[in-house]
């Protein structure tokens, strides 16, 4: 294990960004989101939950797919996929890192999403173990260890240092490039912190949250439950939960007319929107209750059924904090888990 004093972090960022675009939590206009490191950026590695998750770096909110150049009545098709250059994502929490796994299960299976794949392969992920947990955290419900994430490199921070451990070849190579910036460390600061965090996690209200009821539940019974109506009644149909969610992966493909032709791009869509999957023939879900149910059935029932039991929720708690009307997945899990359906 290596370490670097917190006081020298800017040197670390500069060193990494000298060779790679560096993507990490940055404060802008009062909020912390992932952004590119540049001189003077207000890096906020300490923040537990960025507003948006780091999924943008592999699956950006908008992404050009191709362009059509139109001249008179001639049309030329341009492939916009660049040979992706390596880049570094730093500060990824254990839950968000697990979310990449969920995205991989969607995009890296047949049909392969080459746009995602290119970025995924080019990305070097530095995870950041949690030095604290909040009452909105429930990653352990999904078997995630917040204090020991993987990735190409794992870092821990305490009040003095950043501790650095390379986990993969990519990680080792990066470590080597940084040379003397990182110094060897042999102490047990990491282990002490891990123990403390685990101890606090156990005390928090969501420590005992479990999804057992979904594992054994009958899909149709869950689907037809009359609880959904009450659960969803305050839902405004905005996309906050889906857009801050690290695992939501729905997108829409749209076109934009430029001065020389047309750009086809994709952008995140939200199953909460009332025009989600609207087609000429109509919509499969016409009420907000149906849309609300879809989101949670997908995360807790459909997805696991198709993916060896893996949930597409990682317990990051962003939706708990961000829903304007106080709705969230925890309420859903508890509603179906706490009391058995009649």
């Amino acid at each position, binding site marked *: 294990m290596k370490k670097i004093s917190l006081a020298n972090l800017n040197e670390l960022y500069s060193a990494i960004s000298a060779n790679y675009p560096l993507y990490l939590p940055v404060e802008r206009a009062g909020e912390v989101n992932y952004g590119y490191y540049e001189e003077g950026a207000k890096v906020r590695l300490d923040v537990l939950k960025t507003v948006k998750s780091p999924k943008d770096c592999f699956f950006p909110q908008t992404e050009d797919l191709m*362009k059509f150049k139109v001249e008179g009545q001639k049309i030329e098709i341009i492939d916009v996929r660049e040979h992706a250059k390596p880049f570094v994502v730093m500060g990824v929490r254990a839950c968000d890192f697990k979310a990449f796994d969920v995205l991989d299960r969607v995009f890296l299976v047949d049909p392969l999403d080459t746009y995602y794949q290119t970025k995924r392969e080019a990305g070097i992920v530095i995870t950041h173990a949690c030095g604290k947990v909040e009452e909105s955290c429930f990653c352990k419900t999904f078997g995630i260890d917040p204090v020991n994430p993987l990735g190409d490199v794992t870092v821990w921070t305490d009040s003095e240092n950043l501790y650095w451990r390379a986990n993969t070849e990519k990680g080792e190579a990066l470590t080597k490039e940084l040379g003397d910036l990182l110094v060897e460390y042999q102490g047990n600061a990491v282990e002490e912190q891990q123990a403390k965090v685990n101890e606090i996690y156990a005390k928090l209200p969501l420590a005992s949250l479990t999804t057992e009821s979904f594992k054994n539940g009958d899909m149709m019974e869950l689907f037809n439950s009359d609880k959904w109506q009450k659960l969803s009644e305050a839902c405004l149909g905005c996309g906050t939960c889906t857009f801050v969610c690290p695992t939501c992966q729905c997108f829409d493909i749209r076109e*934009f007319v*430029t*001065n*020389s*032709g047309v*750009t086809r791009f994709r952008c995140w869509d939200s199953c909460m929107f009332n025009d989600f999957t609207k087609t000429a023939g109509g919509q499969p879900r016409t009420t907000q209750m149906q849309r609300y149910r879809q989101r949670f059935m997908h995360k807790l029932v459909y997805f696991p059924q198709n993916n060896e039991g893996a949930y597409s929720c990682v317990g990051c708690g962003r939706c708990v904090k961000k829903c304007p009307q106080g709705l969230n997945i925890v309420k859903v899990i508890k509603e179906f888990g706490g009391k058995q359906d009649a």
Partner: protein
Amino acid sequence: MQEIEKNQKKPLIVAFCCNWCSYAGADLAGSSRLSYPAEVKIIKVPCSCRVNPIFILKAFQRGADGVILCGCHPGDCHYSEGNYRTRRRMGLLFSMLNYFGIEKERTRIEWVSAAEGAKFSAVMNDFAKTINELGENRRLEDLRCKD
């Protein structure tokens, strides 16, 4: 070379003219051979009150450097009150655009009657000059359009 040319390109001005007064005023400017810059391109609308803020924003998005609305003089509207509505709507819109930091000189309303060919030409010359001095619209452009 092309790059330089691109950077020095002339500004683009979209003028929305009402059918009854200002469009006719523009015609009169034409038949009186009163020139104004070719950057000014006119879109005919039945009344200035037909101009939706979306049209104006769209013009800026697509690369316009200035947008001007021309209508009948207050009190002379063919539809009796359309331009009064325009005046309120655009007052608030232009103020909001400026509140977002868009240069206030980029938007303008002028009342031009069908008899004011000379005024039409003078207004367009002046507006084009103002926009020229301001330079390219950078604050309300959509970079994708440049593709």
